[in-house]
């Protein structure tokens, strides 16, 4: 389509066409051809964007059952909600457990 567009532009500016109506017709065809090429390229770029997969960052929210201790750590294999992780280092009485596992979603582009 780009070649077709260029050909018609060449015809118009080559000075061979005396009839202004024909010249307008050729310019219109060239514009249509270039628009088509532009739209195709935009669509190709959009198509490529869809496929890019971004792995998500997952966090484990650790809380103490007794005090207000709260910690957010990176998810590790074997973590699950309500998994007990031992005694709280802050109050030494309560049990630390995973209260939630979540992702903040993909990074904004």
């Amino acid at each position, binding site marked *: 389509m780009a070649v077709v567009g260029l050909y018609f532009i060449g015809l118009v500016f080559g000075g061979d*066409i005396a009839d202004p109506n024909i010249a307008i017709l050729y310019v219109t065809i060239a514009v249509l051809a270039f628009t088509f090429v532009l739209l195709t390229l935009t669509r190709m770029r959009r198509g490529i964007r*869809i*496929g890019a*997969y971004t792995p998500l960052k997952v966090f484990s929210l650790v809380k103490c059952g007794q005090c207000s201790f709260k910690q957010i750590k990176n998810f590790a*294999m074997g973590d699950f*909600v309500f*998994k007990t992780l031992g005694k709280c280092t802050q109050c030494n009485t309560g049990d630390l457990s995973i209260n939630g*596992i979540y*992702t*903040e979603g993909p990074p904004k582009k």
Partner: protein
Amino acid sequence: MLPLSLHENDLLGGLLGNLGTISQLLFTVLFIALFFGFGQKLQMRQFLWDIDKGLRKLDMFRNSAKDLTLKTVKEIGKPSTDPGPQINVLMEQFLISPVDMDPAGIVGKIDHLLDVRDAKFKEDVRRIAPGADSSQVMNLENLVEASWALNTIYRIIRHFYLMGKKTNSIFIIIQLQALLPLIIQEAEAYLGAAKAFAEGQPIGDGIGPLVASRLMKDKEKRKVEKDVVVAETMMEDRRVIALKAEGPGGNVGKPGDAIKTIIEENVGKVSMVVMVDAAVKFEGETSGEISEGIGAAIGGIGTERYKIEQEATVHKIPVYAVIVKESIQEAITPMKKEIMEAGEKVIERIKSLILERSKPGDTIIVAGIGNTIGIGQ
């Protein structure tokens, strides 16, 4: 000679002038014919390029999921032989749905088929991953299912692409090209799900089990029907029986059978059933929003919903639904923060529902529906 030569020049000039006009006219006619005659063909060619590109993406997704499955099976399952060929067999597995010409009793038939499929799948996974514990087997089963889904999507799209190409049918190609972005999005979500299943991370669909597990925390639990755990708690002076699929392995259990059993255990004296589940939101709605409704909130093929509706109708028990809105992609990929935070709000909604619709001392069933991967109890 002179007049003749002048006459020849006039002829040539006229001919050349006409030739220019004729060639312009010819070119215009040819161009219009090209657009009208071959426009559709050109468009079809472009659609085919788009589909081809999408198909390559789908192929990449299914290969990634398959590689991840193989890697995880080798890491967790510690098989003595190469699990590749057995995984390939699982990827091509299918289920033949029962004849529905005479629909009476079809729910039982489908339920039986699903049980057989589930048991076989689990057994196959256990065989290829002998080193995995029961929770890991569940996660691996979910992982293989995600890979199976990606493989099936790829095979179906390739089938229609090749068929459209072979038959030159623009209608097949247009439909495929129009649907492809949505299919790719879904496939991408399945790839995300595969990663979540491989690592045992909770997914968006797990909001129901998360709510139930919060209710049953530190309470005595017992196992009822297949892979479902139950615990009793008190809420606003009402006896609440909370249930969810047994975690933290990837599992949905059979909540229909469990609810039926609990109602029978209580001789039908249950004042209401509240079902908590993730539901697909409409575009433009916010993820993590809560809605209330009436009826059995449970997805799947429909067998579990049928059982709940049947039992509720027999005992005249009202069934209420509290749903958390999320997209289909969010439902099968790691749980987003806003969805996790909706869990507390759901408990508040259940409390107000219980206060409005029951009396102190009543028995209420709260069922957390969904995949409990990464969520213990």
